[in-house]
């Protein structure tokens, strides 16, 4: 296949192919029909004219053999059909049955044949249209007899025939193209359905399947596709279950640990200072462990496509102020129109911003500003810090899981999953997050979220 045709869609290629085949078949059919018909009609016409000419020649010969014949009377009484003309060369002179017909009308090639004494015929073209001339030598009276018959009527018939045949070919080609369109639709429609279903599945609708079909050839494809999706769904659900099971198994011992450490902390004043120090270490790492587990579980769930974000209305200004207070930062850092609402999961959005703020506090030299703004129909929150910024090359990489930058950004929650979770949460809320440079040279994280319908 040529590259030019390769870029044409399957649908159009099928239509073109059907039309081309229809055109070829109908053209061959039309051409052969025309040629056969033309040959047959011409031969028949010539035979008729020839018979007529022979009869007329014989009559003229008989009359000329009788002495004292008046040539014009002979030609008139020969009585050829109205459209035919008799031309006679007798005793070196030319005679014709019709005024205005010259001897030049007879083609010279025919004349030389007749002069040589052979009967012959020839088709030629006159000013009035095609004609056929029959030549008969009459040696007994020293004359040359020619009869000229027009073929105009035949030509008309042939023209009509060719018009009909061309029309038929055009009709057949159109019908071929239409058939191609129909065939391509019946091929492309199931393909489109497969594509649409695949897109839906990719979009997280794991329950989507192709509808059953009666077509035996499509049944195989539909069956294979559906069983492939079944397997995929089973695997995804198994993975998700595994994550849930693992987290469940981990949560029980973790519960005992967290609660026991809480109890110890409640009685920390009874402990030796060295034990107290050890308890602090356990407490800190237990907290980290707990958050790692939460982060992992949440990522596992979003990987499994089980991420259903509720559409609760969330007061974003209030949320940001709350998160700022939670991490011990000044709520006054928040600027911009704070009365904006988005939809989603309050707890997860809170975690998103908490991760960003803690990232700025731990790795960005401290939070400098949190700005809310409206851009088109979206809400944009920019989080700036004091640090050295993030090098251009790292600005995408820091959102990878367990990515560690030069200054170990990305592990804002100390788990190496903080910014990855920020990106996943933003995406789950149909928003986005990216990293840029703050005016003061620090890092700027920009979160875009959809504004809630009012």
């Amino acid at each position, binding site marked *: 296949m040529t590259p030019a045709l390769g870029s044409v869609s399957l649908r159009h290629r099928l239509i073109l192919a059907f039309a081309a085949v229809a055109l070829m078949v109908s053209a061959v059919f039309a051409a052969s029909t025309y040629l056969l018909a033309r040959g047959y009609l011409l031969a028949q016409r010539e035979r008729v004219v020839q018979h007529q000419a022979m009869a007329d020649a014989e009559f003229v010969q008989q009359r000329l053999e009788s002495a004292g014949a008046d040539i014009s009377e002979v030609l008139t009484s020969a009585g050829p059909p109205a459209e035919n003309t008799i031309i006679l060369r007798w005793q070196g002179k030319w005679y014709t049955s019709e005024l205005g017909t010259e001897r030049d009308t007879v083609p010279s090639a025919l004349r030389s044949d007749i002069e040589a004494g052979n009967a012959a015929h020839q088709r030629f073209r006159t000013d009035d249209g095609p004609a056929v001339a029959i030549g008969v030598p009459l040696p007994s009276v020293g004359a040359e007899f020619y009869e000229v018959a027009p073929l105009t009527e035949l030509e008309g018939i042939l023209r009509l025939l060719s018009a009909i045949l061309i029309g038929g070919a055009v009709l057949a080609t159109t019908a071929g193209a239409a058939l191609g369109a129909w065939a391509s639709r019946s091929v492309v429609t199931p393909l489109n359905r497969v594509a649409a279903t695949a897109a839906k599945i990719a979009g997280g609708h794991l329950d989507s399947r192709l509808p059953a079909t009666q077509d035996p050839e499509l049944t195989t494809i539909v069956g294979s596709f559906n069983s492939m999706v079944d397997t995929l769904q089973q695997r995804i659900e198994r993975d998700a279950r595994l994550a*849930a099971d693992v987290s469940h198994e981990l*949560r029980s011992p973790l*519960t005992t640990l967290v*609660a026991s450490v*809480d109890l110890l902390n*409640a009685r920390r004043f009874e402990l030796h200072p060295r034990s107290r120090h050890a308890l602090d270490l356990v407490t800190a790492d237990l907290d980290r462990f707990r958050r790692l587990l939460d982060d992992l579980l949440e990522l596992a769930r979003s990987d499994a496509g089980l991420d259903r974000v*509720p559409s609760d209305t969330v007061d974003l200004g209030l949320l940001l102020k709350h998160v700022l207070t939670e991490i011990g930062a000044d709520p006054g850092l928040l600027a911009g129109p704070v009365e904006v609402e988005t939809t989603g999961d309050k707890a997860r959005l809170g975690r998103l911003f908490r991760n960003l703020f803690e990232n700025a506090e731990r790795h960005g030299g401290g939070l400098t500003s949190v700005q809310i703004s409206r851009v088109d129909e979206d809400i944009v929150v920019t989080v700036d810090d004091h640090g050295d910024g993030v090098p251009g090359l790292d600005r995408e990489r820091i959102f990878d899981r367990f990515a560690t930058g030069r200054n170990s950004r990305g592990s804002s929650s100390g788990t190496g999953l903080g910014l990855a979770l920020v990106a996943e949460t933003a995406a789950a809320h149909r928003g986005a997050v990216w990293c840029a440079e703050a005016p003061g040279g620090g890092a700027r994280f920009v979160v875009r979220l959809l504004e809630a319908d009012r």
Partner: protein
Amino acid sequence: MPLQVLVVEDDDRIRAVLRLALEDEGYEVAEAGDAETALALAHAAMPDLMIVDLMLGATDGYTCIREIRRSSDIPIVVVSARSDTHDIVAGLEAGADDYVTKPFQVKEITARLRALRRRLRTAVEAAEPDLFLDSDPRRSLVLSRARGAARLDGEDVPLTVTEFRLLSELAQAPGRVLSRPALLEAVWQHGFYGDERIVDVHIRRLRTKIERDPGQPRIVVTVRGLGYRLDLQ
């Protein structure tokens, strides 16, 4: 006299640490490792509060809660190792008043229990006049805050403490819309990240008990996007 808490949890160690933590808070603790023991104890010992793990052995926590709810309106806090919506809502639908997810901190669970105790107290201590929620003579519904009960045609409606508190909160200002976060704070004392589904589940349960047609509620009305409102009939 200290309040008695029944801890239903199949993990011995979690049970042990909960006992320690709750005893530190001044509760008397009874333990059950499975649903059968829990049901027997709930009937025999008449605890004031219950903590139930949803993942138990043969009989799961949901069944255990449903079974207890048939005869008792004791406040129940569910403990779940899964934070999936499905499990939590199912626990609440079964009749639980509140929930915490594992791993929880001691202060979370004691805060939940404190809120429930407060509900117990306010329910009993309030001495306000009765309020006619539905004045239809064929189907009169009266909220008696002094008695901590609602009466439908002279008979007490079996409301749980939480349902009663929720109804009382809405009845504080009939005709005024109360947002979900406001109800969460007032009834459950959940913090900023409180789960609003808990309100919806309890409203649903409340409606099945007091509405003529729970499918088309007329007393506790949903105000789209804002919250709930109590309309006196």
